[in-house]
Protein backbone atom coordinates (compact mmCIF):
# COMPACT_ATOMS: atom_id res chain seq x y z
CA UNK A 1 0.00 0.00 0.00
CA UNK A 2 1.44 3.33 -0.99
CA UNK A 3 1.72 6.37 1.17
CA UNK A 4 -0.81 8.07 -1.09
CA UNK A 5 -3.37 5.34 -0.39
CA UNK A 6 -2.91 5.77 3.31
CA UNK A 7 -3.38 9.50 3.05
CA UNK A 8 -6.54 9.25 1.00
CA UNK A 9 -8.08 6.54 3.17
CA UNK A 10 -7.18 8.28 6.40
CA UNK A 11 -8.48 11.60 5.20
CA UNK A 12 -11.70 10.07 3.87
CA UNK A 13 -12.17 8.27 7.15
CA UNK A 14 -11.49 11.42 9.19
CA UNK A 15 -13.86 13.50 7.13
CA UNK A 16 -16.70 11.05 6.51
CA UNK A 17 -16.89 8.74 9.52
CA UNK A 18 -18.43 11.54 11.54
CA UNK A 19 -20.79 12.54 8.72
CA UNK A 20 -24.34 13.00 9.96
CA UNK A 21 -27.52 12.99 7.93
CA UNK A 22 -30.74 14.83 8.57
CA UNK A 23 -33.54 12.78 10.03
CA UNK A 24 -36.52 14.15 11.95
CA UNK A 25 -36.73 12.92 15.53
CA UNK A 26 -40.44 12.35 14.97
CA UNK A 27 -39.41 9.26 13.00
CA UNK A 28 -39.20 7.54 16.35
CA UNK A 29 -43.02 7.27 16.21
CA UNK A 30 -42.79 5.19 13.02
CA UNK A 31 -40.19 2.89 14.59
CA UNK A 32 -42.26 2.56 17.76
CA UNK A 33 -45.30 1.65 15.69
CA UNK A 34 -43.35 -1.02 13.83
CA UNK A 35 -41.92 -2.38 17.08
CA UNK A 36 -45.40 -2.63 18.61
CA UNK A 37 -46.66 -4.42 15.53
CA UNK A 38 -43.82 -6.94 15.71
CA UNK A 39 -44.55 -7.48 19.39
CA UNK A 40 -48.22 -8.19 18.72
CA UNK A 41 -47.42 -10.59 15.89
CA UNK A 42 -44.88 -12.32 18.12
CA UNK A 43 -47.39 -12.69 20.96
CA UNK A 44 -50.12 -13.96 18.65
CA UNK A 45 -47.78 -16.40 16.92
CA UNK A 46 -46.37 -17.89 20.09
CA UNK A 47 -49.68 -18.03 21.91
CA UNK A 48 -51.12 -19.95 18.93
CA UNK A 49 -48.24 -22.41 18.99
CA UNK A 50 -48.44 -22.83 22.76
CA UNK A 51 -52.19 -23.39 22.59
CA UNK A 52 -51.76 -25.94 19.84
CA UNK A 53 -49.02 -27.77 21.73
CA UNK A 54 -51.12 -27.83 24.90
CA UNK A 55 -54.14 -29.20 23.06
CA UNK A 56 -51.96 -31.69 21.20
CA UNK A 57 -50.29 -32.88 24.41
CA UNK A 58 -53.64 -33.21 26.13
CA UNK A 59 -55.11 -35.24 23.28
CA UNK A 60 -52.00 -37.43 23.03
CA UNK A 61 -51.92 -38.01 26.77
CA UNK A 62 -55.60 -38.92 26.88
CA UNK A 63 -55.44 -41.26 23.91
CA UNK A 64 -52.27 -42.94 25.21
CA UNK A 65 -53.84 -43.49 28.66
CA UNK A 66 -57.00 -44.83 27.09
CA UNK A 67 -55.09 -47.23 24.80
CA UNK A 68 -52.96 -48.41 27.69
CA UNK A 69 -56.03 -49.20 29.79
CA UNK A 70 -57.69 -51.00 26.89
CA UNK A 71 -54.55 -52.95 26.22
CA UNK A 72 -54.23 -54.09 29.84
CA UNK A 73 -57.87 -55.06 29.94
CA UNK A 74 -57.73 -57.04 26.74
CA UNK A 75 -54.45 -58.85 27.28
CA UNK A 76 -54.49 -59.48 30.99
CA UNK A 77 -53.42 -63.10 30.42
CA UNK A 78 -50.74 -62.25 27.94
CA UNK A 79 -47.20 -61.26 28.65
CA UNK A 80 -45.33 -59.31 26.03
CA UNK A 81 -41.76 -59.08 25.02
CA UNK A 82 -39.97 -56.98 22.43
CA UNK A 83 -37.88 -59.59 20.66
CA UNK A 84 -38.93 -59.70 17.02
CA UNK A 85 -39.88 -63.05 15.54
CA UNK A 86 -39.18 -63.87 11.95
CA UNK A 87 -42.36 -64.15 9.97
CA UNK A 88 -41.44 -67.39 8.17
CA UNK A 89 -40.88 -69.33 11.36
CA UNK A 90 -43.97 -67.92 13.06
CA UNK A 91 -46.56 -69.95 11.23
CA UNK A 92 -44.70 -73.24 11.68
CA UNK A 93 -44.07 -72.63 15.35
CA UNK A 94 -47.73 -71.89 15.99
CA UNK A 95 -48.80 -74.98 14.10
CA UNK A 96 -46.23 -77.21 15.85
CA UNK A 97 -47.06 -75.95 19.31
CA UNK A 98 -50.78 -76.27 18.79
CA UNK A 99 -50.40 -79.81 17.42
CA UNK A 100 -47.99 -80.83 20.18
CA UNK A 101 -50.04 -79.37 22.97
CA UNK A 102 -53.44 -80.43 21.71
CA UNK A 103 -52.87 -83.54 19.59
CA UNK A 104 -56.44 -84.66 20.00
CA UNK A 105 -57.83 -81.65 18.38
CA UNK A 106 -56.81 -82.91 14.97
CA UNK A 107 -58.91 -85.95 15.43
CA UNK A 108 -61.87 -84.07 16.70
CA UNK A 109 -64.29 -81.96 14.82
CA UNK A 110 -62.92 -79.05 16.74
CA UNK A 111 -59.99 -78.97 14.36
CA UNK A 112 -61.43 -76.39 12.04
CA UNK A 113 -62.42 -74.09 14.92
CA UNK A 114 -58.99 -74.23 16.49
CA UNK A 115 -57.28 -73.66 13.20
CA UNK A 116 -59.37 -70.64 12.52
CA UNK A 117 -58.64 -69.30 16.01
CA UNK A 118 -54.91 -69.93 15.56
CA UNK A 119 -54.92 -68.37 12.15
CA UNK A 120 -56.66 -65.33 13.50
CA UNK A 121 -54.10 -65.02 16.28
CA UNK A 122 -51.33 -65.44 13.74
CA UNK A 123 -52.86 -62.79 11.51
CA UNK A 124 -52.91 -60.37 14.38
CA UNK A 125 -49.31 -61.23 15.11
CA UNK A 126 -48.28 -60.83 11.51
CA UNK A 127 -49.79 -57.39 11.41
CA UNK A 128 -47.95 -56.49 14.56
CA UNK A 129 -44.66 -57.55 13.06
CA UNK A 130 -45.50 -55.45 10.03
CA UNK A 131 -46.02 -52.34 12.04
CA UNK A 132 -43.16 -53.12 14.37
CA UNK A 133 -44.77 -53.09 17.81
CA UNK A 134 -44.67 -55.65 20.56
CA UNK A 135 -44.92 -59.35 19.86
CA UNK A 136 -46.83 -61.84 21.89
CA UNK A 137 -44.97 -64.88 23.14
CA UNK A 138 -46.01 -67.92 21.12
CA UNK A 139 -46.61 -70.46 23.84
CA UNK A 140 -48.80 -67.98 25.66
CA UNK A 141 -50.79 -67.40 22.48
CA UNK A 142 -51.41 -71.07 22.03
CA UNK A 143 -52.29 -71.43 25.72
CA UNK A 144 -54.66 -68.53 25.46
CA UNK A 145 -56.25 -70.03 22.34
CA UNK A 146 -56.64 -73.42 23.99
CA UNK A 147 -58.04 -71.87 27.17
CA UNK A 148 -60.59 -70.08 25.14
CA UNK A 149 -61.38 -73.21 23.30
CA UNK A 150 -61.84 -75.24 26.45
CA UNK A 151 -64.13 -72.66 28.00
CA UNK A 152 -67.69 -73.33 27.39
CA UNK A 153 -68.26 -70.29 25.27
CA UNK A 154 -70.19 -69.62 22.17
CA UNK A 155 -68.16 -68.96 19.03
CA UNK A 156 -69.41 -65.36 19.07
CA UNK A 157 -68.01 -64.77 22.55
CA UNK A 158 -64.70 -66.35 21.58
CA UNK A 159 -64.40 -64.23 18.51
CA UNK A 160 -65.29 -61.15 20.57
CA UNK A 161 -62.40 -61.82 22.93
CA UNK A 162 -60.02 -62.55 20.10
CA UNK A 163 -61.13 -59.50 18.24
CA UNK A 164 -60.23 -57.38 21.23
CA UNK A 165 -56.72 -57.34 19.84
CA UNK A 166 -57.76 -55.69 16.65
CA UNK A 167 -57.93 -52.06 17.70
CA UNK A 168 -54.57 -52.36 19.48
CA UNK A 169 -52.86 -53.93 16.49
CA UNK A 170 -54.65 -51.58 14.15
CA UNK A 171 -55.73 -54.60 12.14
CA UNK A 172 -58.26 -52.60 10.25
CA UNK A 173 -58.16 -54.25 6.86
CA UNK A 174 -60.43 -51.74 5.18
CA UNK A 175 -59.41 -50.98 1.63
CA UNK A 176 -58.67 -47.48 0.35
CA UNK A 177 -61.84 -45.50 0.58
CA UNK A 178 -63.03 -42.17 -0.65
CA UNK A 179 -65.49 -40.16 1.33
CA UNK A 180 -67.04 -36.75 0.79
CA UNK A 181 -67.67 -34.03 3.34
CA UNK A 182 -69.53 -30.78 3.01
CA UNK A 183 -69.75 -28.03 5.55
CA UNK A 184 -69.30 -24.45 6.59
CA UNK A 185 -66.39 -22.50 7.98
CA UNK A 186 -65.95 -19.31 9.99
CA UNK A 187 -62.59 -17.76 10.36
CA UNK A 188 -62.16 -14.51 12.29
CA UNK A 189 -58.67 -13.09 12.06
CA UNK A 190 -56.33 -10.20 12.68
CA UNK A 191 -55.75 -8.37 9.44
CA UNK A 192 -52.61 -6.59 8.39
CA UNK A 193 -51.06 -5.10 5.33
CA UNK A 194 -47.52 -4.60 4.12
CA UNK A 195 -47.06 -1.49 2.01
CA UNK A 196 -44.00 -1.23 -0.20
CA UNK A 197 -42.88 0.75 -3.18
CA UNK A 198 -43.46 -0.73 -6.57
CA UNK A 199 -39.85 -0.62 -7.82
CA UNK A 200 -40.98 -0.42 -11.44
CA UNK A 201 -43.13 2.63 -10.71
CA UNK A 202 -40.65 4.21 -8.32
CA UNK A 203 -40.40 7.46 -10.28
CA UNK A 204 -44.11 8.09 -9.70
CA UNK A 205 -43.83 7.99 -5.92
CA UNK A 206 -43.60 11.20 -4.00
CA UNK A 207 -40.97 10.02 -1.56
CA UNK A 208 -41.28 13.01 0.73
CA UNK A 209 -44.59 11.61 1.95
CA UNK A 210 -44.14 7.91 1.39
CA UNK A 211 -43.32 7.15 5.02
CA UNK A 212 -46.50 8.87 6.15
CA UNK A 213 -48.49 6.75 3.68
CA UNK A 214 -46.74 3.44 4.39
CA UNK A 215 -46.82 3.95 8.14
CA UNK A 216 -50.49 4.89 8.20
CA UNK A 217 -51.93 1.43 8.61
CA UNK A 218 -52.33 -0.39 11.86
CA UNK A 219 -54.07 -3.58 12.87
CA UNK A 220 -57.40 -4.42 11.45
CA UNK A 221 -59.49 -7.51 11.35
CA UNK A 222 -60.55 -10.03 8.82
CA UNK A 223 -63.23 -12.60 8.28
CA UNK A 224 -63.49 -15.59 6.03
CA UNK A 225 -66.81 -17.40 5.93
CA UNK A 226 -67.95 -19.94 3.43
CA UNK A 227 -68.86 -23.39 2.29
CA UNK A 228 -66.51 -26.35 2.11
CA UNK A 229 -66.41 -29.48 0.12
CA UNK A 230 -63.82 -32.06 0.94
CA UNK A 231 -62.83 -35.36 -0.62
CA UNK A 232 -61.10 -37.74 1.77
CA UNK A 233 -58.89 -40.60 0.78
CA UNK A 234 -58.55 -43.43 3.26
CA UNK A 235 -59.99 -41.11 5.95
CA UNK A 236 -56.61 -39.39 6.28
CA UNK A 237 -55.60 -37.51 3.16
CA UNK A 238 -57.94 -34.94 1.75
CA UNK A 239 -58.42 -32.29 -0.87
CA UNK A 240 -60.70 -29.44 0.07
CA UNK A 241 -62.27 -26.62 -1.85
CA UNK A 242 -65.34 -24.43 -1.68
CA UNK A 243 -66.37 -20.84 -1.85
CA UNK A 244 -65.60 -18.26 0.81
CA UNK A 245 -66.41 -14.63 1.39
CA UNK A 246 -63.23 -13.02 2.56
CA UNK A 247 -62.65 -9.60 4.11
CA UNK A 248 -59.41 -7.82 4.86
CA UNK A 249 -59.61 -4.63 6.83
CA UNK A 250 -57.01 -2.26 8.18
CA UNK A 251 -57.38 0.96 10.15
CA UNK A 252 -55.81 3.97 8.47
CA UNK A 253 -54.85 7.25 10.02
CA UNK A 254 -53.45 9.85 7.66
CA UNK A 255 -52.54 13.23 9.04
CA UNK A 256 -49.91 15.30 7.31
CA UNK A 257 -49.56 18.60 5.49
CA UNK A 258 -48.43 18.63 1.89
CA UNK A 259 -46.08 21.44 1.13
CA UNK A 260 -44.61 20.05 -2.08
CA UNK A 261 -47.03 19.32 -4.87
CA UNK A 262 -45.65 17.16 -7.64
CA UNK A 263 -45.97 17.93 -11.28
CA UNK A 264 -46.45 14.49 -12.73
CA UNK A 265 -45.90 13.47 -16.29
CA UNK A 266 -47.86 10.32 -16.91
CA UNK A 267 -44.99 8.82 -18.90
CA UNK A 268 -41.90 10.20 -17.21
CA UNK A 269 -42.97 10.34 -13.58
CA UNK A 270 -42.51 13.23 -11.16
CA UNK A 271 -40.80 16.12 -12.95
CA UNK A 272 -40.75 18.85 -10.35
CA UNK A 273 -42.59 20.14 -7.31
CA UNK A 274 -44.99 22.98 -7.87
CA UNK A 275 -45.37 25.73 -5.28
CA UNK A 276 -48.88 25.72 -3.85
CA UNK A 277 -50.36 26.62 -0.51
CA UNK A 278 -50.00 23.80 2.05
CA UNK A 279 -52.84 21.35 2.22
CA UNK A 280 -53.73 19.05 5.05
CA UNK A 281 -54.48 15.39 4.35
CA UNK A 282 -56.47 14.06 7.25
CA UNK A 283 -58.41 10.84 7.36
CA UNK A 284 -59.12 8.23 9.96
CA UNK A 285 -61.10 5.16 9.04
CA UNK A 286 -61.17 1.55 8.09
CA UNK A 287 -60.08 0.34 4.70
CA UNK A 288 -62.07 -2.75 3.86
CA UNK A 289 -61.55 -5.02 0.88
CA UNK A 290 -63.95 -7.85 0.14
CA UNK A 291 -63.17 -10.83 -2.02
CA UNK A 292 -64.85 -13.99 -3.18
CA UNK A 293 -62.36 -16.67 -2.50
CA UNK A 294 -61.91 -20.14 -3.98
CA UNK A 295 -59.40 -22.25 -2.07
CA UNK A 296 -57.74 -25.47 -3.12
CA UNK A 297 -56.24 -27.12 -0.09
CA UNK A 298 -54.45 -30.35 0.51
CA UNK A 299 -54.26 -31.87 3.97
CA UNK A 300 -53.76 -34.76 6.31
CA UNK A 301 -55.67 -35.97 9.35
CA UNK A 302 -54.03 -37.94 12.10
CA UNK A 303 -56.35 -39.83 14.43
CA UNK A 304 -55.34 -40.24 18.06
CA UNK A 305 -58.62 -41.92 18.83
CA UNK A 306 -61.42 -42.87 16.43
CA UNK A 307 -63.03 -39.51 17.13
CA UNK A 308 -60.20 -37.11 17.89
CA UNK A 309 -57.06 -36.03 16.12
CA UNK A 310 -55.11 -33.26 14.50
CA UNK A 311 -55.24 -32.04 10.95
CA UNK A 312 -52.98 -29.86 8.85
CA UNK A 313 -53.76 -28.33 5.54
CA UNK A 314 -52.14 -26.00 3.13
CA UNK A 315 -52.83 -24.74 -0.34
CA UNK A 316 -53.51 -21.87 -2.64
CA UNK A 317 -56.53 -19.69 -3.15
CA UNK A 318 -57.81 -17.46 -5.86
CA UNK A 319 -59.62 -14.28 -4.82
CA UNK A 320 -61.94 -12.22 -6.94
CA UNK A 321 -62.20 -8.60 -5.83
CA UNK A 322 -65.72 -7.79 -4.85
CA UNK A 323 -65.96 -4.39 -3.16
CA UNK A 324 -63.74 -1.91 -1.39
CA UNK A 325 -64.63 0.61 1.26
CA UNK A 326 -62.65 3.37 2.92
CA UNK A 327 -59.87 5.54 1.60
CA UNK A 328 -56.26 5.18 0.67
CA UNK A 329 -53.69 7.76 -0.38
CA UNK A 330 -52.43 7.86 -3.90
CA UNK A 331 -48.64 8.10 -3.43
CA UNK A 332 -48.21 10.08 -6.64
CA UNK A 333 -50.75 12.84 -6.27
CA UNK A 334 -51.07 12.53 -2.48
CA UNK A 335 -54.82 12.78 -2.56
CA UNK A 336 -57.24 10.46 -0.85
CA UNK A 337 -59.00 8.05 -3.13
CA UNK A 338 -61.43 5.17 -2.83
CA UNK A 339 -60.46 1.58 -3.33
CA UNK A 340 -61.81 0.78 -6.72
CA UNK A 341 -61.53 -1.51 -9.68
CA UNK A 342 -59.20 1.10 -11.17
CA UNK A 343 -56.45 0.29 -8.73
CA UNK A 344 -57.27 -3.11 -7.18
CA UNK A 345 -56.50 -6.31 -9.06
CA UNK A 346 -59.55 -8.21 -10.22
CA UNK A 347 -58.00 -11.59 -9.36
CA UNK A 348 -55.39 -12.19 -6.68
CA UNK A 349 -53.53 -15.31 -5.69
CA UNK A 350 -52.86 -16.32 -2.11
CA UNK A 351 -51.85 -19.16 0.13
CA UNK A 352 -53.13 -20.61 3.38
CA UNK A 353 -51.61 -22.70 6.14
CA UNK A 354 -53.50 -24.15 9.09
CA UNK A 355 -53.07 -26.79 11.75
CA UNK A 356 -55.49 -27.72 14.46
CA UNK A 357 -57.59 -30.32 16.16
CA UNK A 358 -60.74 -32.05 14.96
CA UNK A 359 -63.48 -34.00 16.62
CA UNK A 360 -65.64 -36.52 14.80
CA UNK A 361 -69.04 -37.00 16.34
CA UNK A 362 -71.04 -40.22 16.22
CA UNK A 363 -73.44 -38.59 13.79
CA UNK A 364 -70.74 -38.08 11.18
CA UNK A 365 -70.14 -34.42 11.92
CA UNK A 366 -66.54 -33.24 12.02
CA UNK A 367 -65.70 -30.12 14.02
CA UNK A 368 -62.34 -28.51 13.38
CA UNK A 369 -60.61 -25.72 15.26
CA UNK A 370 -57.35 -24.53 13.85
CA UNK A 371 -55.15 -21.41 13.88
CA UNK A 372 -54.44 -20.37 10.35
CA UNK A 373 -52.33 -17.95 8.36
CA UNK A 374 -53.31 -16.70 4.98
CA UNK A 375 -51.68 -14.18 2.74
CA UNK A 376 -51.79 -12.80 -0.73
CA UNK A 377 -48.87 -13.86 -2.89
CA UNK A 378 -48.65 -10.58 -4.73
CA UNK A 379 -49.99 -7.10 -4.30
CA UNK A 380 -53.69 -6.34 -4.02
CA UNK A 381 -53.08 -3.32 -6.24
CA UNK A 382 -52.62 -3.50 -9.97
CA UNK A 383 -49.13 -3.65 -11.46
CA UNK A 384 -49.40 -0.10 -12.73
CA UNK A 385 -50.04 1.28 -9.22
CA UNK A 386 -46.96 2.89 -7.60
CA UNK A 387 -47.46 1.04 -4.31
CA UNK A 388 -47.55 -2.65 -3.53
CA UNK A 389 -49.98 -3.68 -0.84
CA UNK A 390 -49.85 -7.27 0.36
CA UNK A 391 -52.67 -8.23 2.69
CA UNK A 392 -52.35 -11.02 5.20
CA UNK A 393 -54.03 -12.29 8.31
CA UNK A 394 -53.65 -14.61 11.26
CA UNK A 395 -56.88 -16.25 12.24
CA UNK A 396 -58.71 -19.04 13.94
CA UNK A 397 -60.59 -21.29 11.60
CA UNK A 398 -63.71 -23.09 12.78
CA UNK A 399 -65.14 -25.75 10.45
CA UNK A 400 -68.24 -27.90 10.72
CA UNK A 401 -68.34 -30.65 8.12
CA UNK A 402 -70.75 -33.47 7.56
CA UNK A 403 -69.66 -36.77 5.99
CA UNK A 404 -72.27 -37.47 3.35
CA UNK A 405 -70.76 -40.58 1.83
Amino acid at each position, binding site marked *: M*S*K*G*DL*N*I*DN*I*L*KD*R*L*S*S*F*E*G*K*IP*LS*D*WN*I*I*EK*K*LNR*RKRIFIFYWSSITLLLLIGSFVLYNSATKNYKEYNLKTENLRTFKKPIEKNTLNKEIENKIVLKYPKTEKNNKNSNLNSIATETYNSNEQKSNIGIEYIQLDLISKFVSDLYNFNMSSIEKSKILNLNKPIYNSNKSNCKFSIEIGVNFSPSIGMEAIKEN*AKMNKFIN*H*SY*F*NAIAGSSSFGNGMNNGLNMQINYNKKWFISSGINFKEYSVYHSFDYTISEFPNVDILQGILKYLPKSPENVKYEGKGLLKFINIPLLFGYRHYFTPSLGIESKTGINLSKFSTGQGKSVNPTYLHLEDYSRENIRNWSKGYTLSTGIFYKSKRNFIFTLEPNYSSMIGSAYKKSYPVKNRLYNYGLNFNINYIIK
Partner: protein
Amino acid sequence: MDKSKIYEIIEGCKKNDRNCQKLLFEFYSKKMMGVCQRYCNNSEIARDLVHDGFIKVFTKISSFKGDSSLETWMTRIFINTCLSHLKKTENRQVFMDIDENIHSIKDDNENKDENEFAVMIKNMPVSKIFDYINSLPEKYKIILNMYSVDGFSHKQISETLGIQIGSSKSRLSRARTMLIDKIKHNESKN
Protein backbone atom coordinates in the same frame (compact mmCIF):
# COMPACT_ATOMS: atom_id res chain seq x y z
CA MET B 1 -22.73 10.79 26.45
CA ASP B 2 -20.70 9.11 29.19
CA LYS B 3 -20.11 5.38 29.38
CA SER B 4 -22.34 4.74 32.39
CA LYS B 5 -25.25 6.45 30.66
CA ILE B 6 -24.72 4.38 27.50
CA TYR B 7 -24.51 1.24 29.63
CA GLU B 8 -27.84 2.16 31.26
CA ILE B 9 -29.44 2.73 27.86
CA ILE B 10 -28.15 -0.60 26.53
CA GLU B 11 -29.49 -2.44 29.57
CA GLY B 12 -32.83 -0.65 29.17
CA CYS B 13 -32.97 -1.58 25.49
CA LYS B 14 -32.27 -5.21 26.37
CA LYS B 15 -35.37 -5.05 28.59
CA ASN B 16 -37.40 -3.51 25.74
CA ASP B 17 -37.76 -0.23 27.58
CA ARG B 18 -39.25 2.19 25.05
CA ASN B 19 -37.73 5.27 26.73
CA CYS B 20 -34.23 3.82 26.47
CA GLN B 21 -34.87 2.81 22.87
CA LYS B 22 -36.02 6.33 22.13
CA LEU B 23 -32.89 7.79 23.77
CA LEU B 24 -30.70 5.48 21.70
CA PHE B 25 -32.55 6.57 18.55
CA GLU B 26 -32.21 10.24 19.41
CA PHE B 27 -28.52 9.84 20.13
CA TYR B 28 -27.49 7.81 17.11
CA SER B 29 -30.16 8.51 14.47
CA LYS B 30 -28.25 11.29 12.68
CA LYS B 31 -25.02 9.35 12.59
CA MET B 32 -26.76 6.24 11.29
CA MET B 33 -28.64 8.34 8.74
CA GLY B 34 -25.19 9.47 7.59
CA VAL B 35 -24.09 5.85 7.23
CA CYS B 36 -27.21 4.94 5.25
CA GLN B 37 -26.88 8.00 3.03
CA ARG B 38 -23.30 7.06 2.23
CA TYR B 39 -24.50 3.70 0.93
CA CYS B 40 -27.79 4.78 -0.57
CA ASN B 41 -28.25 7.88 -2.72
CA ASN B 42 -31.96 8.31 -2.13
CA SER B 43 -32.49 10.07 1.19
CA GLU B 44 -36.03 8.71 1.60
CA ILE B 45 -34.85 5.15 1.14
CA ALA B 46 -32.00 5.90 3.53
CA ARG B 47 -34.60 7.07 6.04
CA ASP B 48 -36.49 3.80 5.65
CA LEU B 49 -33.25 1.91 6.13
CA VAL B 50 -32.60 3.83 9.34
CA HIS B 51 -36.00 2.66 10.61
CA ASP B 52 -35.28 -0.95 9.65
CA GLY B 53 -31.78 -0.74 11.08
CA PHE B 54 -33.00 0.52 14.46
CA ILE B 55 -35.59 -2.27 14.61
CA LYS B 56 -32.77 -4.76 13.97
CA VAL B 57 -30.64 -3.07 16.64
CA PHE B 58 -33.44 -3.32 19.20
CA THR B 59 -34.16 -6.96 18.41
CA LYS B 60 -30.49 -7.98 18.38
CA ILE B 61 -29.17 -5.86 21.22
CA SER B 62 -29.32 -8.78 23.63
CA SER B 63 -26.47 -10.32 21.60
CA PHE B 64 -24.30 -7.21 22.06
CA LYS B 65 -21.52 -8.29 24.42
CA GLY B 66 -19.50 -5.09 24.44
CA ASP B 67 -16.51 -6.54 22.53
CA SER B 68 -16.55 -3.46 20.33
CA SER B 69 -18.08 -0.05 20.94
CA LEU B 70 -21.84 0.24 20.55
CA GLU B 71 -21.38 2.67 17.70
CA THR B 72 -19.16 0.24 15.75
CA TRP B 73 -21.61 -2.59 16.36
CA MET B 74 -24.56 -0.46 15.27
CA THR B 75 -22.71 0.81 12.21
CA ARG B 76 -22.10 -2.78 11.07
CA ILE B 77 -25.82 -3.54 11.44
CA PHE B 78 -26.77 -0.47 9.43
CA ILE B 79 -24.22 -1.27 6.72
CA ASN B 80 -25.61 -4.82 6.48
CA THR B 81 -29.14 -3.41 6.28
CA CYS B 82 -28.09 -1.13 3.43
CA LEU B 83 -26.33 -3.96 1.61
CA SER B 84 -29.38 -6.23 1.98
CA HIS B 85 -31.49 -3.47 0.48
CA LEU B 86 -29.06 -3.05 -2.42
CA LYS B 87 -29.16 -6.80 -3.00
CA LYS B 88 -32.95 -6.73 -3.22
CA THR B 89 -33.10 -3.79 -5.59
CA GLU B 90 -31.67 -3.32 -9.00
CA ASN B 91 -28.10 -2.75 -7.79
CA ARG B 92 -27.06 -6.35 -8.32
CA GLN B 93 -23.84 -5.34 -10.07
CA VAL B 94 -22.42 -4.52 -6.64
CA PHE B 95 -22.54 -8.21 -5.79
CA MET B 96 -21.28 -9.56 -9.10
CA ASP B 97 -17.78 -10.30 -10.27
CA ILE B 98 -17.73 -8.82 -13.74
CA ASP B 99 -14.33 -8.40 -15.30
CA GLU B 100 -12.82 -6.80 -12.24
CA ASN B 101 -9.39 -8.32 -12.38
CA ILE B 102 -7.74 -5.28 -13.85
CA HIS B 103 -4.91 -4.97 -11.38
CA SER B 104 -3.92 -1.45 -10.86
CA ILE B 105 -0.34 -0.70 -11.73
CA LYS B 106 0.46 2.56 -10.11
CA ASP B 107 3.24 4.66 -11.36
CA ASP B 108 4.83 7.61 -9.67
CA ASN B 109 2.51 10.02 -11.46
CA GLU B 110 -0.55 8.36 -10.00
CA ASN B 111 0.87 8.49 -6.51
CA LYS B 112 1.66 12.10 -7.06
CA ASP B 113 -1.95 12.63 -8.15
CA GLU B 114 -3.21 10.97 -5.01
CA ASN B 115 -1.04 13.10 -2.79
CA GLU B 116 -2.31 16.24 -4.48
CA PHE B 117 -5.81 14.94 -4.14
CA ALA B 118 -5.31 14.20 -0.45
CA VAL B 119 -4.36 17.82 0.16
CA MET B 120 -7.35 18.93 -1.91
CA ILE B 121 -9.99 16.99 -0.01
CA LYS B 122 -8.50 17.83 3.36
CA ASN B 123 -9.77 21.38 2.94
CA MET B 124 -13.04 20.51 1.23
CA PRO B 125 -16.40 20.68 3.07
CA VAL B 126 -17.69 17.25 4.12
CA SER B 127 -20.96 17.64 2.22
CA LYS B 128 -19.01 18.20 -0.98
CA ILE B 129 -16.85 15.11 -0.49
CA PHE B 130 -20.05 13.21 0.25
CA ASP B 131 -21.60 14.42 -3.00
CA TYR B 132 -18.53 13.43 -5.01
CA ILE B 133 -18.51 9.93 -3.54
CA ASN B 134 -22.23 9.59 -4.12
CA SER B 135 -21.76 10.47 -7.77
CA LEU B 136 -19.58 7.37 -8.27
CA PRO B 137 -21.18 4.25 -9.72
CA GLU B 138 -22.76 2.12 -7.01
CA LYS B 139 -20.27 -0.75 -7.07
CA TYR B 140 -17.28 1.56 -6.64
CA LYS B 141 -18.94 3.77 -4.08
CA ILE B 142 -19.76 0.80 -1.85
CA ILE B 143 -16.18 -0.51 -1.85
CA LEU B 144 -14.74 2.94 -1.19
CA ASN B 145 -17.12 3.40 1.73
CA MET B 146 -16.50 -0.03 3.17
CA TYR B 147 -12.71 0.05 2.85
CA SER B 148 -11.74 3.66 3.31
CA VAL B 149 -14.42 4.96 5.66
CA ASP B 150 -15.75 1.96 7.59
CA GLY B 151 -12.45 0.10 7.88
CA PHE B 152 -13.41 -3.22 6.29
CA SER B 153 -10.53 -5.33 5.00
CA HIS B 154 -10.58 -6.67 1.44
CA LYS B 155 -11.23 -10.14 2.84
CA GLN B 156 -14.24 -8.91 4.79
CA ILE B 157 -15.52 -7.03 1.74
CA SER B 158 -15.17 -10.11 -0.44
CA GLU B 159 -17.06 -12.21 2.11
CA THR B 160 -19.80 -9.65 2.63
CA LEU B 161 -20.40 -8.89 -1.04
CA GLY B 162 -19.61 -12.37 -2.35
CA ILE B 163 -16.92 -11.15 -4.73
CA GLN B 164 -13.25 -12.07 -5.10
CA ILE B 165 -10.55 -10.26 -3.12
CA GLY B 166 -8.94 -9.22 -6.41
CA SER B 167 -12.20 -7.64 -7.53
CA SER B 168 -12.44 -5.74 -4.29
CA LYS B 169 -8.91 -4.38 -4.71
CA SER B 170 -9.36 -3.40 -8.33
CA ARG B 171 -12.73 -1.75 -7.63
CA LEU B 172 -11.17 0.26 -4.83
CA SER B 173 -8.36 1.35 -7.10
CA ARG B 174 -10.84 2.28 -9.81
CA ALA B 175 -13.00 4.14 -7.30
CA ARG B 176 -10.07 6.22 -6.13
CA THR B 177 -9.06 7.06 -9.68
CA MET B 178 -12.61 8.05 -10.62
CA LEU B 179 -12.97 10.15 -7.49
CA ILE B 180 -9.69 11.95 -8.13
CA ASP B 181 -10.65 12.59 -11.74
CA LYS B 182 -14.07 13.93 -10.81
CA ILE B 183 -12.80 16.22 -8.10
CA LYS B 184 -9.93 17.50 -10.23
CA HIS B 185 -12.21 18.08 -13.17
CA ASN B 186 -14.79 20.00 -11.17
CA GLU B 187 -12.35 21.92 -9.01
CA SER B 188 -10.36 23.05 -12.06
CA LYS B 189 -13.60 24.38 -13.55
CA ASN B 190 -14.20 26.42 -10.43
